[in-house]
C-alpha cells in the first residue's frame, strides 16, 4: 500500500470520453471517481453518522466515496463552475460524504467545525472550468474551497480556473 500522503483522489464530472482524454490514468497512487452519471442525492437522514457510521445508507456507488477519501492525501475536484460553486453532479457526491467526518463539534478559529473521523485528512484542490467565469464567482469559489477544507480536510486548499475542459489537462501535467 502506498503511503497515504502520496495518494491523490480525483473527483470529476467529465463524460467518459473527455475523462479519458484529459485525466491521467488511475494507479495505486491515483484514484478516480466519476460524479457523472449522477449518484442519488442526499436525503438528509444522518444515517452516515448514527446508523452505519462512516458510510452512507443509500446503496448506490455514491456510498463508496468516503472509503476512497480516507485513503488519500489530496482530493482534487474537477468541476464545471456553477454560480461560483461546484456542479450538481459533484455536489451530489460531496453531500453524500459527510460520513467522512464525525457528528461531534470542535471549535477552531472562533467557529464550530466537525471533529475528524480519520487522521490526516486530505488537502483540497479545486479545478474549475467554465467560459466567462465572473470575478464574483471566482471569489465565491475560493471561499468555498477554504470553508470545505476546514470542515472536511486539512484546512489547506487551492483553487484554479480554466475556460474549457480541454484546458484542464494543464492542471494534471
Amino acid at each position, binding site marked *: 500500500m502506498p503511503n497515504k500522503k502520496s495518494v491523490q483522489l480525483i473527483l470529476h464530472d467529465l463524460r467518459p470520453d473527455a475523462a479519458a482524454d484529459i485525466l491521467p490514468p488511475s494507479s495505486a497512487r491515483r484514484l478516480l471517481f466519476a460524479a457523472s452519471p449522477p449518484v442519488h*442525492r442526499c436525503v438528509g437522514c444522518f444515517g452516515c453518522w448514527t446508523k452505519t457510521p462512516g458510510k452512507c445508507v443509500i446503496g448506490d456507488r455514491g456510498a463508496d466515496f468516503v472509503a476512497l477519501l480516507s485513503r488519500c492525501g489530496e482530493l482534487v475536484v474537477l468541476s464545471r463552475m456553477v454560480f*461560483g460553486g461546484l456542479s450538481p453532479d459533484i455536489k451530489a457526491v460531496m453531500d453524500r460524504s459527510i460520513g467522512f467526518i464525525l457528528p461531534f463539534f470542535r471549535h477552531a478559529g472562533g467557529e464550530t467545525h466537525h471533529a475528524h473521523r480519520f487522521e490526516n485528512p486530505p488537502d483540497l484542490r479545486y479545478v474549475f472550468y467554465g467560459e466567462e467565469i465572473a470575478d464574483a464567482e471566482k471569489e465565491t469559489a475560493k471561499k468555498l474551497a477554504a470553508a470545505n477544507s476546514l470542515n472536511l480536510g486539512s484546512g489547506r486548499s487551492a483553487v484554479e480556473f480554466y475556460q474549457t475542459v480541454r484546458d484542464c489537462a494543464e492542471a494534471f501535467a
Partner: protein
Amino acid sequence: MKITCINGSPKTRRSASARIADALSAKIGGAAECVVCGAAELDRGEAPAAFRGSDALVFVFPLYVDGIPSHLLRFLDESLHDIAEAASGATVYAVVNNGFFEGRQNAVALEIMRNFAARAGLRWGLGLGVGAGGMIHAAPVGRGPLRNLGKALDALASEILANQTGEDRVCEPNFPRALYKALAHAGWRKSARKNGLKTKSLYAKP
C-alpha cells in the same frame, strides 16, 4: 403581489426550512399571495410554472457542505432560463439555515444564490443566514430561544413586501453556544442508541 417560497430541504415537511418558510409566509399573511413549494415540485419540473408572475422568489434551504443541497442546485442550474423567463420581474431572497451555531457559516451559500440571481438576470434582494438550525423545534418561532429568528423574519417579511434590497444578515438563537453543542452531542448519542449502537461505534472507521 405574489411571493413564492421554495423549500429546498430534502426532508420537506419535517425540516427546519419548512418551519422557517411557514413562519415567513404567516408574517406576509394577508398582505400578499404567498405560495410555498417544495422538493416534490422541483423534482416533477413543475416549479418554474408555479413561479410565474412572482414579485419575489424566496429560497429557504439547509446548508449542505457549505453550499446548496445538490437537488436544489441541479434545479437552479437546469431550469435557469425557465426561472428567468417565468419570474422575470422577481427579486430573489434566500434564507439558509445550518447545523452549526454560527449563522455566518451560511455566507458562502448566500453568495452562491446571489451569483445565481446574477446569472438569471434577476434582482438580488438579500440573504439571511440562520445559525443553530437544530433549535428550530425547541419553541414557536418568535418565542424563547427563537426570539431573534422571529425578529429577523419580521424584518425580512417587510423588506420582501416593500421589494427592498439590503446587506446579507445572520441570526443566532437566544441560547448559549456551549449548551447547544452539549445538546447536539447528547442528541447524536441518543439516536445511536435508538439504532442499537454504542457511542463508541459512532467513531468507526469503516
